[in-house]
């Protein structure tokens, strides 16, 4: 990717990661490394049934094991946290199970010991007795199921669109979002063709290689939590709420993360270690195993029924019904249902739109945000559907899309006009890179070739706040304080580049202080590709504030406007020695208007749009159903690329992750029990799975409200991958797959059905 700098030459330059040397030498700091004097290790005892009333928990044998410090149940937790329920949308999740368990793997007790092996052995000795209850696992069945996951719904109260659910009983619906634009019934009636298809996605896992880990230490009326979290400010506020303490008595520190991808958001282990540390008055660490990650958070499985009316090659009406499998606790699912739900019709200009999007409770591991916040599930459906219609109408898939694209200034389904969304430029660039207009060799014999494309978009979550502090020391060196978590996306480096651009210094000279809520100011969280835009704006404002204060200091010292006297000399002149600081502060929250409850309409749904497209070429072995992706091209609109090298890595990394979710990753359930909870049975992409030809690039674009024209990039590479592959398979062998993952077995069975020679089940 070409380097294209501006002004001071810091933005647009592929600065090497500030922490590069620390990471290649193995010395980068992770919570995983932390040990504190007197620390106890906790091992969680987990539910063995998917829905049941707890009759009794027998801890005698565990307590009797030599070396066990304590065995803790919810009764003990309640002595320090009387109302032990947390969650960003609903206060539905208990620190340990209360009365009932709602999924296999739910924490029901904890064993504490100084030796983690003893804690693990003792955890095996705890026996819980359950009265099993009827369970529900499928998101569509959960709409009408007699099995009810939660007796009473408990919205957190912070979101107005959840208020109507307060106290509701006999339902598994944790949010229903509706959008009405135009008249779909009339649109279908007047259409030349009407198509309806249903698509499904499976549960998959974030699987960061650093599993969840948190440490808490209490003392002097304060609590410090060291945690691998993407949301330190949220953790501080939520723990303070649980304890009834002011925020300033809770300190949350986050070093580097060994991957996050949306898993390490909100409260995961933090409330548990906090309560344990207060209970036993010793530091407590809990590190999950790889297996336990499968019992913590997954990506929503989904069912999407989509219906479109076409008139004269234009999509004139679209109806979307989406059911999101939220698992046993809402986590951030209701936000996904709404904030992503409203983009369900895709990046197309459609006059009549109806969306009904439902967040469902089921008796499975809770589901949350995973690199795309619901968007990959939606793009999978609407871009498969788009291709199926184009093929049925014998229209070129690129031309059909281009004829229907949402263009600048046109209203999206919410009524919000599109702005700074280079949808057409992305599609055109992708078509060029794929040589779309040229003849394509579709192979012969048992190896057939195909190609496919797909394009998706996403609205940034809003409204959210970021605050940053830029500190100029007396020698002129600069430190940035912000609560953005660098989990691998390179935010430390990119933010340093913004500071450096404003202050006209080298990005490499900026020190970035990692999140520590005693020191770094509030930030909503590192999620949803929001940081480059929101924190970026705050960082830029903070650096400008520092620059303005330096200029004021120069004026105060009688220096001429625009003086080039070095900063260190300004301090020297002012304080007569190397002393003092200049503190710049930046605070950013974009404008936003919430959608109307009944129609989903709003003049301002989002501060910015992300656009991502993928093109693939595949080879299908018709004797085995095996699909080989030989080429993968990603094109995105990221506004201006602050660090082109990191942007490219983010795009290709996201696309490869989505390749895993498309081709083979799937959490297998058997009656609510996960049967493949290990890396041996749940395969993620390895270096052997990378297409031989992989290419990522951005289009020339600018986000006018973003810092130096930039916006988010972390998720855009995921959008188009799954449908592009399904479209390419159809192109190769004429088989349409509508459920993920696209395994060789599924395709082979479909090929045999097409040959009127189906395999036995």
């Amino acid at each position, binding site marked *: 990717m070409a380097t294209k700098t501006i002004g001071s030459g810091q933005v647009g330059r*592929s600065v*090497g*990661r500030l*922490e*590069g*040397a*620390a*990471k*290649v*030498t*193995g*010395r*980068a700091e*992770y919570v*995983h*490394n932390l*040990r504190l004097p007197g620390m106890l290790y906790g091992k969680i005892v987990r539910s063995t049934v998917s829905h049941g009333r707890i009759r009794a928990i027998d801890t005698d044998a565990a307590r009797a094991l030599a070396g066990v410090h304590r065995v803790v149940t919810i009764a003990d937790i309640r002595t320090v946290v009387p109302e032990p329920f947390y969650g960003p949308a609903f206060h539905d999740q208990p620190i340990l199970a209360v009365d009932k368990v709602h999924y296999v793997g739910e924490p029901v007790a904890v064993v504490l010991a100084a030796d983690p*092996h003893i804690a693990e052995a003792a955890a095996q000795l705890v026996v819980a007795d359950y009265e099993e209850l009827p369970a529900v696992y499928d998101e569509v069945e959960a709409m009408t199921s007699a099995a009810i996951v939660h007796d009473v719904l408990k919205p957190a109260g912070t979101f107005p669109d959840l208020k109507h659910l307060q106290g509701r009983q006999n339902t598994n619906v944790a949010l229903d979002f509706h959008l009405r634009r135009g008249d779909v019934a009339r649109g279908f009636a007047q259409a030349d063709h009407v198509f309806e298809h249903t698509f499904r996605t499976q549960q998959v896992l974030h*699987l*960061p*290689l*650093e*599993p969840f880990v948190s440490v808490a230490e209490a003392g002097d009326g304060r609590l410090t939590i060291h945690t691998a979290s993407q949301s330190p400010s949220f953790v501080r506020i939520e723990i303070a709420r649980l304890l009834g303490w002011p925020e300033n008595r809770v300190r949350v520190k986050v070093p*580097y*993360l*060994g*991957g*996050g*991808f949306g898993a390490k958001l909100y409260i995961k282990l933090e409330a548990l270690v906090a309560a344990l540390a207060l209970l036993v008055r010793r530091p407590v660490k809990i590190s999950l*195993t*790889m297996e336990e990650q499968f019992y913590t958070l997954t990506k929503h499985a989904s069912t999407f029924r989509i219906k479109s009316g076409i008139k004269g090659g234009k999509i004139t009406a679209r109806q979307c019904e989406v059911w999101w499998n939220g698992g046993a606790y809402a986590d951030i699912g209701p936000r996904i249902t709404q904030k992503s739900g409203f983009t369900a019709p895709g990046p197309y200009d459609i006059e009549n739109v109806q969306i009904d999007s439902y967040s469902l409770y089921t008796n499975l591991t809770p589901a949350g945000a995973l690199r795309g916040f619901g968007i990959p599930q939606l793009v999978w459906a609407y871009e498969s559907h788009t291709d199926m219609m184009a093929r049925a109408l014998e229209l070129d898939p690129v031309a059909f899309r281009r004829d229907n694209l949402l263009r600048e200034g046109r209203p999206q389904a919410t009524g919000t006009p599109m702005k700074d969304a280079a949808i057409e430029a992305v599609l055109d660039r992708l078509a060029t890179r794929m040589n779309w207009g040229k003849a394509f060799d579709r192979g012969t014999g048992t190896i057939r070739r195909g190609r496919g494309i797909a394009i998706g978009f996403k609205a940034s979550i809003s409204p959210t706040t970021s605050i940053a502090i830029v500190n100029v020391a007396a020698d002129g060196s600069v430190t940035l304080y912000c609560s953005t978590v660098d*989990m*691998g*996306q*390179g935010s430390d480096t990119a933010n340093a580049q913004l500071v450096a651009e404003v202050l006209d210094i080298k990005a490499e000279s900026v020190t970035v202080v990692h999140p520590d809520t005693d020191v770094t100011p509030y930030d909503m969280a590192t999620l949803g590709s929001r940081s480059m835009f929101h924190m970026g704006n705050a960082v830029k404002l903070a650096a400008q504030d520092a620059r303005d204060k330096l200029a004021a200091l120069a004026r105060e010292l009688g220096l001429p406007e625009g003086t080039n006297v070095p900063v260190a000399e300004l301090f020297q002149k002012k304080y007569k020695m190397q002393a003092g600081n200049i503190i710049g502060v930046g605070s950013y929250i974009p404008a936003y208007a919430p959608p109307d409850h009944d129609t989903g309409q709003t003049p301002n749904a989002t501060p910015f749009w992300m656009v991502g497209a993928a093109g693939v070429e595949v080879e299908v072995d018709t004797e085995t159903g095996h699909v080989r992706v030989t080429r993968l091209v990603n094109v995105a609109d990221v506004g201006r690329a602050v660090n082109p*090298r*990191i942007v490219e*890595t*983010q795009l*290709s*990394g996201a696309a*490869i*992750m989505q390749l895993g979710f498309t081709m083979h990753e799937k959490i297998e359930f058997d009656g609510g029990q996960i049967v493949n909870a*290990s*890396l*041996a049975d749940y395969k*993620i*992409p*390895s*270096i*052997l799975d*990378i297409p031989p030809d*992989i290419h990522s690039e951005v289009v020339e674009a600018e986000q006018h409200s973003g810092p130096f024209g930039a916006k988010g990039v972390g998720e855009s590479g995921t959008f188009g991958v799954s449908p592009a592959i399904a479209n390419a398979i159809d192109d190769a062998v004429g088989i349409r797959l509508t459920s993920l993952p696209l395994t060789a077995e599924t395709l082979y069975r479909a090929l045999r059905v097409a040959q009127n020679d189906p395999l036995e089940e």
Partner: protein
Amino acid sequence: MSRTIHFTLNGKPVAAEIAPHQNLVEVLQQRFDLFGARESCAQGLCGCCTVLVDGSAVSGCLFLAAFADGSAVVTIEHLAAGGKLDPIQQAFIECGAFQCGFCTPGFVLMAGQLIGAHPDPDEDQIRHYLAGNLCRCAAYPEIIEAVKLAARNMRKGVE
């Protein structure tokens, strides 16, 4: 139950009292404050815990510490012990061959063994040699590039 083992660690003779069930990663972390080898999958499948024992890469999470008795153990921390980065580490930085960095030490050590065996590896050799190391951030294209660059620089250094 516990016993004392003796081995060389990053070139220095050391001793440690260990329990029979302890693996090498635990002992490196708890007795020697070396955190570059990390346990992740605990099944020897991800490569995050890679350690060199008598010159060969092993999965430290599956390698009982007792087996290290009498051997030479090298960890990622040894590579830049003199303050200067190894050519492979340098190439990983130059090519941006990591994101979160959790798997990076394993990749660097494995790449060293690869270049030792194949000083001029082609892409296929790189892919097959590194197939036992996983990177969830999927910096694989950059890792392939980094290994090629490191091999090139190391060949130049030898010539």
